[in-house]
């Protein structure tokens, strides 16, 4: 009620329950507009938002890349991309016909100051007061683009108008470079104008973790070291690097997935409730959690982290024949706070694993006394709460139940919540959610400088150890759950991966 009163005080006609958040008149300048991310994610997301009437009529897109082409040619290219990668419904020529006149293109090299002047002139020409800059480029261009925007005075907000910067991961390749990049960005943009995108946080199911935990009274009392035995976070892909060998070789699984996406997911699972649901309050709690993760010492790394590489990776295009890049990473983290002390968080990610699945499994302690051991037909199973992020988004609770018939034989059963069964239609894609958030100035689902630095601190000892060590790669077969050492990492502590 207090929130409603505040909204009413600002605009007495506001109706937060009925009116969608309003995207203001705005130009979105995409650097790297000829790249895969723009074609596969950004333009389809913008098209879908236009379809859902979430964008203002004069919303403009200005694309930039090196390739010379006309506005018309760029529009045609984007049209084809949207048609190809739109996965939530058929393409409408009529809708595209309304969008296309507001799509523009400025060719030019990102190291050329003239290009930024041309972009600035285009923004003036189309009379858009607000500008969102989207860095969809290779990470090595982040610094030069920000410098270029600064030199063209394009990072300066004016009264009543905004300038915002959306930047894709990776934010640096280690702690030092992340700090350097942040310093370079802050020379042009204020921190509250910087939106570091982590598309995992835009997924409905990840957002639902907060609703699940803090919107219900029954789970949060169990959400601590007294009842939780351990947590497993798995992000498995069945495919390999699929033509991204060059990029992946420089990144590796730890940088590509754990440092950003999975540590953010872990922070969402383990954070304390914020006092209010406001961007900085929520991000403060995520940041606090990340700062509480125990940093392993160099000596502890082999015990708490395992790298793997699938057989065949070195034959991928763009990959060196002696590559030491990990395509699988697993790590054990502990959170040094009163809620989680002593509870291991096992995180793993990898390519060419048996199936595509991203999920969080929270395993609860066994009952203190087992009444039914004498009647057991199998090992007693602990209760398990599984938050499925993809595919088949949902939540399952596995618990013991009596098997029908005489005697008291127990068997694990599953109680399932499936998104489709309760909410029917499509959920917005992560990029739709995150773009609307950035355009309306809501940074809740974006990462902040302190969060980025905290997560680099967590993985840095592991990165350093792996960089200094000659790994025995390749060490796992495609279609398996990674190297045996990953299993041993858990077994040593008395745990097992869920490989179902």
């Amino acid at each position, binding site marked *: 009620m207090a929130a409603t009163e505040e909204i009413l005080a600002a*605009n007495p*006609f506001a*109706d937060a*329950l*009925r009116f969608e958040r309003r995207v203001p008149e705005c130009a979105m300048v995409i650097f790297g507009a000829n790249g895969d991310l723009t074609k596969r994610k950004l333009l389809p997301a913008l098209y879908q938002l236009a379809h859902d*009437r979430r964008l203002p009529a004069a919303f403009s897109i200005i694309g930039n890349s090196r390739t010379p082409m006309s506005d018309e040619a760029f529009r045609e290219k984007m049209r084809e991309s949207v048609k190809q990668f739109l996965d939530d419904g058929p393409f409408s020529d009529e809708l595209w016909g309304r969008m296309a006149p507001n799509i523009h293109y400025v060719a030019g090299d990102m190291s050329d100051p003239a290009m930024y002047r041309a972009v600035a002139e285009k923004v003036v020409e189309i009379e858009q007061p607000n500008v969102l800059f989207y860095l969809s480029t290779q990470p090595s261009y982040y610094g030069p683009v920000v410098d270029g925007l600064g030199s063209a005075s394009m990072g300066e907000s004016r009264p009543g108008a905004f300038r915002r910067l959306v930047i894709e991961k990776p934010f640096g390749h280690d702690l030092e470079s992340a700090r350097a990049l942040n310093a370079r960005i802050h020379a042009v943009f204020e921190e509250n104008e910087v939106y570091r995108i982590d598309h995992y946080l835009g997924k409905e199911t990840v957002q639902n973790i907060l609703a699940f935990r803090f919107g219900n009274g029954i789970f949060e009392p169990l959400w601590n070291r007294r009842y939780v035995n351990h947590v497993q976070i798995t992000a498995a892909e069945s495919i390999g690097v699929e033509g991204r060998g060059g990029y992946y070789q420089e990144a590796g699984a730890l940088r590509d997935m754990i440092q950003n996406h999975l540590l953010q997911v872990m922070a969402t699972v383990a954070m304390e409730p914020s006092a209010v649901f406001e961007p900085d309050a929520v991000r403060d709690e995520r940041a606090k959690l990340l700062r509480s993760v125990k940093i392993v010492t160099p000596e502890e790394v082999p015990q708490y982290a395992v790298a793997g590489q699938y057989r065949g990776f070195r034959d991928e295009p763009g990959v060196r024949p002696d590559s030491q890049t990990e395509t699988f990473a697993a790590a054990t983290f502990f959170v040094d706070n009163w809620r989680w002390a002593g509870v291991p968080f096992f995180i793993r990610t990898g390519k060419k694993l048996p199936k595509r699945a991203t999920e969080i499994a929270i395993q609860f302690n066994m009952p203190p006394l087992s009444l039914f051991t004498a009647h057991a037909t199998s090992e007693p199973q602990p209760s398990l709460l599984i938050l499925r992020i993809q595919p088949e988004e949902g939540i399952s609770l596995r618990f013991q139940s009596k098997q029908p018939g005489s005697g008291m034989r127990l068997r694990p059963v599953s109680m399932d919540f499936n998104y*489709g*069964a309760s909410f*029917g239609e*499509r959920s917005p894609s992560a990029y739709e959610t995150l773009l609307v958030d950035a355009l309306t100035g809501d940074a809740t689902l974006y990462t902040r400088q302190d969060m980025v630095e905290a997560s680099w601190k967590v993985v840095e000892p592991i990165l350093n150890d792996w960089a200094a060590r000659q790994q025995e790669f390749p060490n796992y077969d495609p279609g398996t759950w990674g190297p045996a050492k990953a299993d041993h990492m858990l077994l040593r502590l008395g745990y097992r991966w869920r490989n179902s």
Partner: protein
Amino acid sequence: MTAAAGVHPEQILTDLRELWTSLARDQADGGGVLRACAMTLAVTAGDASDAELVRRTLGVLMHSHPSRAIIVRDVVGGAGGTIGGGADGQVGNGAGAPGPGAAVQQMEAHIFAECWKPFGSNQQICSEGIEITPGAGAPGNGGMAEVARFIVPLRAPDLPFVLWRRGALGRDNRRYDALLALADKIIFDTFDAPDAAGALTYMRALQTAGRRVGDLNWTRLSGWREVIAHLFDDVALDPDAVTSANVSYGGGRLTTSALYIAAWIRSALPGAPVIVDAVNAPAREPGGLVSVEFTSASDRLALRRAEGDCVEVTGAGRNYHSALPPVNVEELMREELGLLGRDPVYERVLAA
């Protein structure tokens, strides 16, 4: 799919279970069937063709609000298509007597499933439904009370129960009291209420009695209201500077649309008088709203219904057209079913 069922609720539930079994069996391509249900949605309908129309609407609604649908056929006396007492006046007199020509018959029920496949998915999502035709032996208040008793065990357990009470509000409102008593939310549509003020009085009384109500004719105004709200977001006018407002309607009939907008403006700008005027203009849309104007000491800001589902905004430095969202019944219901909790703005407007 439709299957005949007995008239006992237990039998209907058994038949529903069998229906799900057969749906899963019939699914040839291996994608499976997902049983979707987030609420019970009871809907009043008239004759067979009206019930068919309701089925089609439910088929669309199920995509965003999967539910166990219960269609209550409310035709008494075999007279035809209207519900809740049509113009012929044969029903709804509260006498509890059969209408002329009504054959004494038992309550009937049929079950059905509405299924669809999301774009690009192999899995079929299905919601279930029950269509009930009350026995003609006990129409009037008694008939609906019997239906209400019948529905109680058919509600999806522990999920919200929404009643979409279709048809005009009027003299036979009391016939539905037993059904209304079951509902967590009751949705009306006062668009064609012959007595707009009377319809609002009735709903206000329900709200005062603790019922949660919604009105599709309020939902129809979301587009208008959003355009107005944006103008005040943009500070086109300072709310404190507005000295008066004027709401005009056409079509020769005062509707709840004009009354709602006026009450909404009054609740937002308590210091500014709001005048509601009939104008000699055709109503371009159901509800007949023609224009809304805000006046301050130095400015006049006008929103006028224009051709092509648009509102023309002029004054205070503005001159543009703003598109209104589609107002078909599916979209209206979709919005209304998305609000099963409190709706403070509507409650305030209805109470005013």
